[in-house]
């Protein structure tokens, strides 16, 4: 058996742990730079606020219904996520953290008599210990476990835990579950699904294997099997090195000078290199991009990008940051105001086992390597951005956190205060 533990409206729930007065009331959390709603309480969903809605678009609803608005407080969310993971680890033999608010549990070999009671108990423990409501779905495959956890959210009667295993139950549930919402069925395949007459998960599971293989490639075939109760998506309790690394942000205020854009992008590049080095990879190719504000339709729009190759691979701070700054100088156009920019490593290889060119300057590489190591060590100890390259400017990403809650659990100066 597998379980999926999924935190309900996670960012909103984190805020509510410290603000119990917000239980039962509409709450939303905005993305970086207070752009768009990225987490909504059920009450906010009921008011018609959609995932990704920019704040200005829903301002009327927010004001009329006194919706509480928070800026993202990622220090808090990260710490609360760590706490939930700890509870899960204490209750399951192995845990695969899938995202900040979701984890799969591998229950194969665990001695559990009653999976339904187990799921409800686990949900209750998470709630009691961390304050976060968690939906736990248990099923023979990861894909079905994910569906089971969604049922918990729809039906409060399940008390946060659902064991989905009887074939008759699975059929009943899949018949009402839209195929497009199944984990692993991408948005792009929706057109194809319609052509094949598939609208529910059950329709998909009833397709002939031949049609699935022909139309949906390997991932679609796996999903098909998983829906039929055959586990075939590997359990991964170690983290695979990522194939892409992207650091991008939208700016609180639009940027219209090349120096400013350079220093922001340089800071992104520095962060991206830190991630790259953290997983022991080399970048072979990097894309640097900048774009205007797509919501300001009356202003001239632009999306500019530059692709740079590092044929020998690099994980050097200086090389990457200076190259990124250089790319910005090439793509910058002063007719536009830039709202968002980023750095993306589009080709990554593992450092170990990668053969670098014979003709590279090994001595220079060694120097670069030492400098990067020192930067990692200093920035690791004293905080990112302590030691930085001149082009990064003050190293601050100019973002706005107008409605950020205190970092209740990660900063001494921001502990919750109790009046007693």
């Amino acid at each position, binding site marked *: 058996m597998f379980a999926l533990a999924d935190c309900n409206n996670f960012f909103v729930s984190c805020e509510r742990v410290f603000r119990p*007065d917000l239980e039962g009331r509409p709450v939303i959390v905005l993305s970086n730079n207070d752009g768009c709603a990225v987490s909504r309480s059920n009450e906010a969903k009921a008011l018609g606020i959609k995932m990704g809605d920019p704040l200005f678009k829903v301002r009327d609803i927010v004001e009329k219904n006194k919706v509480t608005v928070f800026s993202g407080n*990622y220090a808090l969310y990260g710490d609360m996520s760590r706490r939930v993971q700890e509870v899960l680890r204490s209750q399951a033999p192995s845990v695969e953290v899938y995202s900040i608010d979701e984890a799969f549990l591998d229950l194969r070999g665990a001695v559990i008599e009653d999976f339904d009671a187990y799921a409800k108990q686990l949900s209750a423990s998470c709630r009691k210990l961390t304050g976060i409501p968690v939906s736990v779905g248990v099923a023979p495959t990861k894909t079905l476990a994910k569906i089971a956890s969604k049922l918990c959210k729809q039906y409060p009667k399940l008390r946060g835990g659902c064991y989905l295993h009887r074939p008759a139950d699975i059929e009943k549930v899949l018949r009402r579950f839209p195929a497009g919402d199944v984990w692993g069925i991408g948005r792009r395949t929706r057109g194809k699904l319609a052509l094949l007459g598939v609208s529910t998960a059950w329709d998909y599971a009833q397709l002939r294997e031949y049609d699935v293989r022909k139309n949906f490639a390997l991932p679609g075939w796996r999903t098909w099997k998983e829906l039929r109760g055959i586990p075939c998506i590997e359990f991964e309790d170690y983290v695979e090195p990522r194939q892409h690394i992207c650091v991008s942000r939208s700016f609180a205020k639009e940027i219209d000078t090349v120096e400013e854009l350079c220093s922001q992008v340089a800071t992104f590049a520095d962060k991206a290199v830190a991630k790259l080095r953290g997983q022991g990879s080399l970048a072979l190719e990097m894309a640097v991009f900048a774009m205007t504000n797509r919501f300001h339709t009356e202003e001239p729009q632009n999306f500019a990008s530059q692709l740079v190759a590092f044929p020998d691979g690099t994980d050097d701070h200086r090389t990457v940051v200076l190259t990124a700054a250089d790319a910005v100088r090439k793509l910058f156009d002063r007719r536009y105001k830039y709202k968002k920019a980023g750095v993306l490593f589009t080709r990554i290889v593992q450092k170990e086992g990668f053969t670098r060119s014979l003709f590279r300057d090994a001595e220079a590489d060694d120097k670069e390597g030492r400098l990067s190591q020192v930067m990692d060590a200093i920035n690791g100890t004293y905080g990112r951005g302590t030691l930085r390259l001149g082009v990064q400017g003050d190293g601050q990403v100019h973002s706005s956190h107008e409605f950020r809650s205190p970092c209740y659990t990660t900063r001494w100066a921001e*502990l*919750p*205060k109790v009046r007693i």
Partner: protein
Amino acid sequence: MKNASFVPHPVTDTESFESLLVGAVKAGFPSPAEDVREKLDLVKLLVRHTASTFFFQVDGVSMVDADMDEGDILIVDRAVDPYNGCKAVCFIDGEYTVKRVVIHDDGAVLMPCNEHSTHYKPIPVGPDNDFLVWGVVTYIIKKA
């Protein structure tokens, strides 16, 4: 992202900060304490459950007789079940407070602990109150 915000010292043991900057120190006599790494960890003493322990800061004087003074840091563990007489962070009708919780058959009373002031009265908790025990206070950190 895993615990990313919570790793204050990612420098590994084998490659310490200093050895990176100045190179390993080569000395004559190996220290007999080299392989013994022991130290007292206050966090281990005060935080029994790392998943469920939170810190709060005291603002107010209703609990001075329970050794809770202005500015003290309370260690609060949600894993501890509220018991009769426990001191707990409570949330009642929209506000946080810390009181001694006296539990009886059909409810509870939140008792202040300040003999010198008549300002603080016991708060009865009934079915009409919006009430929850947020977590039980397990330690108080105070400046000597």
